[in-house]
């Protein structure tokens, strides 16, 4: 298909979106990324039955935590994209990039030098 999607999207592979924990999302934002989205399988299509449904709930929880912190919850999103749906993957990458670009950079970026392990 030779589809292209924005180069700023870094793909982190996980065996299933059910593997993704709220802390992973928070740590990513802590490290200075501008946004995080999960590309899970379509609802009802999870190979592990409920992984993507768990991810939906965890992303909702992560959004609540971000609201508490005062960071835009829109920086975190859940998408459902069929494994074979390349065009949709590229479209979502573009959509999310545009959305985050409109929000501006992560407010903790460049201020996080004070972070220590």
């Amino acid at each position, binding site marked *: 298909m030779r589809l292209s999607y924005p180069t700023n999207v870094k793909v982190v592979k996980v065996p299933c979106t059910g593997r993704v924990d*709220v802390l992973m999302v928070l740590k990513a934002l802590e490290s200075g990324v501008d946004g995080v989205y999960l590309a899970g399988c379509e609802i009802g299509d999870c190979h592990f039955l409920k992984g993507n449904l768990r991810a939906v709930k965890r992303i909702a929880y992560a959004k609540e*935590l971000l609201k508490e912190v005062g960071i835009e919850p829109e920086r975190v999103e859940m998408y459902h994209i069929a494994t074979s749906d390349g065009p949709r993957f590229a479209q979502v990458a573009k959509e999310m990039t545009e959305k985050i670009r409109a929000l501006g950079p992560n*407010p*903790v970026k460049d201020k996080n030098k*004070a972070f220590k392990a």
Partner: protein
Amino acid sequence: MIVGNRKPLEEILEMVKPYKKILLLGCNECITVCAAGGEREVGVLASELKLSRAKNGGEIEIKEHTLERQCDFEYIDQIKPFVDDYEAIVSMACGAGIQYTAERFPGKVVLPAINTTFLGVTLEQGVWSERCQGCGECILHLTGGICPVARCAKSLFNGPCGGSSNGKCEVNPDTPCAWQLIVDRLKELGQLENYEKIIEVKNWSTSRDGGPRTRVREDLRIPKDS
């Protein structure tokens, strides 16, 4: 287990405002099981605090540490080697653990990150429910294993009251009437004669009304001079 809730971030941020180096102390017991103050929640709170500080241009150094328990001094004392590197401890244990940590380190500021709520059970993953108030004198043998002290809003001993309607409590339509549960269960057990018994006025001195309680088992105590 003891069940608690994480305090809202805003409240915790206000408490830690004066500090730049904090020790965030979780507990591996009940508060881990009720998903409020275990290793995982320590990680989430640490991340939230760091994000919030960074967003507002401040600095914060957080050491995440989760003890096996915060209600036994042998475990609390494990933080001795590094506790002085931090200005304050934020404890994610229950009220007992928070206090005992403060007691072991009298010169250290210990702040609570948990609102301790009740003694309860896990109904399903993510749902906990109150079952016991530690009143010090159990009568579950008379009430079909359902506690009127903890589960009746009025702690009635000879219920139900007039607020019981269709098996629910007037305090909250989602709360079952404890006395309805008791009667149903006694019926099932063929023990309705227990319901006929008038339960006498309770001696609340065994409960909180008698002041803070201490339990001693002399046979287990280690003499101070040994």
